[in-house]
C-alpha cells in the first residue's frame, strides 16, 4: 500500500511539473523576448508603452466599455435571477435558455448578425428615429453596439456565476426574514440579499471584465479600436511592445483573479467565524 501511495505521489508530481513547464514556458519566453536586446537587456518595450500613440485612448475606451458592460449586465441579470427565485419559478427555464443561447453563436457570427442589422438603415430612412438610433449606437467615441455585443457574450458566464452564488444562499428565507422585520422590498434586496451575493457579483464582474479587456473579434470587425485591437496594430510594427503588453495583460488578469479569490475567502472566513 505504501508503495502504491508513493507511486501515486510521484505520478502526480510528474503530471503537475510537466503541465507547469508547458504553461510557464511561453510566459518566460515572452518576458525574455520583450526585454531581449542585441546589446543586453532593455525595458524600452515597457517604458515606451505609456507614450505610444493610441495607448491611452484605446485603454480608456476599453475600460469605459468594460464598466458600462458590467453595470448593464448586473442590472439586467440580478433582478431577473432574484425574481425567478422568489416569485416566478416558471420563468426559470426560459431564463436559463436565454442566458445559454449566446454560447451557441460564436462572436464572429454575432458580429456578422449585428452588421446585418446595422445595414438595415438605408438612406431613405434618414430622418426616422430608427436610423438615428443606428447612428447613435455606432458613435466611435463610445460604440454602444459593442456594449450590446459584450453583454450578450458575457451573459452565459455571468449567469452561471450568479446562479451558483444564489444557489448557496437561501434567498427566500433571507427576504422573508427581512420583510418580516419591516424592511421594504428594495431594502430587503439591497441590504440583505446583495451582500450575501458579494462573491458571486464579484465573480461575474470579473469574468465580464476579463472578457471585455481581451475581446478582439467584434471590435476589430466593426472597426473600433479598443485595447485589444490597438495591441494588434502595434504587433505589426513593434513585436517587442506587443509581447510586453501581452505579458502585462496576463499579469493584470492574474492580479484581478487573486484579489477576487481573496475577497471571496475573506467573506467565507467571516461567515464561518461569526
Amino acid at each position, binding site marked *: 500500500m505504501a508503495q*502504491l501511495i508513493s507511486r*501515486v505521489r510521484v*505520478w502526480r508530481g510528474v*503530471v503537475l511539473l510537466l503541465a507547469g513547464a*508547458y*504553461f510557464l*514556458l*511561453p*510566459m518566460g*519566453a515572452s518576458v525574455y*523576448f520583450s526585454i*531581449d536586446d542585441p546589446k543586453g537587456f532593455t525595458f524600452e518595450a515597457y517604458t515606451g508603452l505609456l507614450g505610444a500613440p493610441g495607448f491611452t485612448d484605446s485603454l480608456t475606451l476599453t475600460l469605459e466599455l468594460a464598466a458600462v458592460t458590467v453595470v448593464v449586465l448586473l*442590472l*439586467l441579470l440580478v*433582478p*431577473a435571477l432574484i*425574481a*425567478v427565485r*422568489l*416569485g*416566478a419559478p416558471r420563468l426559470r427555464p*426560459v431564463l436559463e435558455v*436565454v442566458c*445559454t*443561447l449566446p*454560447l*451557441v453563436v*460564436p*462572436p*464572429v*457570427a454575432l458580429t*456578422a*448578425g*449585428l452588421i*446585418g442589422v446595422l*445595414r*438595415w438603415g*438605408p438612406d431613405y430612412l434618414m430622418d426616422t428615429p430608427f436610423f438615428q438610433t443606428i447612428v447613435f449606437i455606432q458613435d466611435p467615441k463610445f460604440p454602444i453596439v459593442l456594449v*450590446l455585443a459584450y453583454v*450578450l457574450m458575457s451573459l452565459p458566464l455571468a449567469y452561471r456565476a450568479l446562479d451558483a452564488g444564489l444557489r448557496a444562499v437561501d434567498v*427566500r*428565507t433571507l427576504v*422573508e426574514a427581512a420583510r*418580516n*422585520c*419591516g424592511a*421594504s422590498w428594495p431594502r430587503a434586496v439591497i441590504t440583505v440579499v446583495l451582500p450575501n451575493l458579494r462573491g458571486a457579483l464579484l465573480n461575474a464582474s470579473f469574468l465580464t471584465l476579463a472578457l471585455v479587456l*481581451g475581446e*478582439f*473579434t467584434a471590435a*476589430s470587425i466593426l472597426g473600433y479600436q479598443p485595447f485589444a485591437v490597438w495591441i*494588434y496594430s502595434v504587433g505589426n510594427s513593434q*513585436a517587442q511592445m506587443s*509581447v510586453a*503588453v*501581452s505579458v502585462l*495583460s*496576463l499579469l493584470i*488578469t492574474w492580479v484581478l483573479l487573486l484579489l477576487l*479569490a481573496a475577497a471571496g475567502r475573506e467573506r467565507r472566513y467571516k461567515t464561518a467565524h461569526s
Partner: protein
Amino acid sequence: MTTAPTPVPTPAATELSGGAGASGTATPVPRRRTVKLRGGSWLATVPLFAFFAISFGLPAIAIAIGAFTLSSDAETGAGTFTTQNVTDSVQGAYWTSLLSSVKLSALTALIGTVLGLPIAQAVVTSRFRAVREAVLSASGVLANFGGLPLAFAFVATLGNAGEITKLFHLTDHGWSLYSFTGLTIVYLYFLVPLMVLSITPALDGLRVQWREAAHNNRATTLQYWRHVALPILFPSLLGGYVLLFGSAFAAYATAAAMVGATVPLISRSIADALSGNVLVGQGNLALALSLDMIVVAVVVMAVYLPLQRRSARWLS
C-alpha cells in the same frame, strides 16, 4: 418557521406586494408565507428579456434573412429569396475552411480532454490545498487567456524569431508555428485549463468509497478507472469536450493574429467576407457562413446540454 405568526410587518407587506388583490386573498393555508410576493416579480425579468430580444433576436433575424436573400448592395435586391449564399458557403474554399475549423476544434478538444483529465485528477487528489488553489486559479486565468496576448506570447516563444525556436534551431527541423500543428499547440494553452476547470467538480464528486470498494474487490487501479470512474465521468468528460470544441471553434483572434491565411478557418472567412477583403457585396455570404457556424454549434450544444443534466445524477 412557517408557523410563526408575523406580528408587525404584515400590513406593509400586503401594501407593497404589487398584485394586491390576488395576494391578499391568497389561499388560506399558504405552504410558504412568500406566496404574497408572487404579484409582479416577473416584471423584474422583463428588462433582460427585452434586451435579449433586441440585441440577440435582431441579429439572429438578420442572419436568417440575409443568408437567404440575394447578395447585393442595391436596395432592390433586398427582397429576393435565394439559396445561393448558403450553397456557396458549403462549397470550394468556404467548405475547406469550415472543415478545417471543425477538424482543428475536434482534434484540439480531444487532446485537451485527454491532457486535462490527469492534471485535474492530480489537483483533486493532492494533499496540499495550496497546489489545488494555485492550479485552479491559474486555470481560471489561462482559460480566459485566449485571443491576442496568447498569440503574441507564442510568437515570442515558438514563432520564427521566437526564443525557443532560436535556442533549438527549430526552423531547421521544419518547425513552423504558423501551421495546423502550431495552432493546435497554441489552442491547447487555453483548452487544457478550461478542461481542468470543467472536470474538477466531477472528479470531486467521485466518492472515495467507490474506489475503496473497488480495491476491496481486488480491482486494480486500472480496472477501477475503466469500470467505475470513467463510466461515471463519461458524461462530464463529453460535456467538457463539447465545451472545448465550442471554444476552439469560435476562436478568432488567436488565429487571426498568428497564422493569417495559412490555415483556413471559417471564422476568418467570415471576417474577410464582412470586411470585403475578397469581394464587395459579400455581406450576405458572410451571414450564410455564420449560419453554417451556428448550425455546427447548435448540434454541439444539443449534445452538451442533456449531458450536463445527466452528469448531475451521479455527481451531485
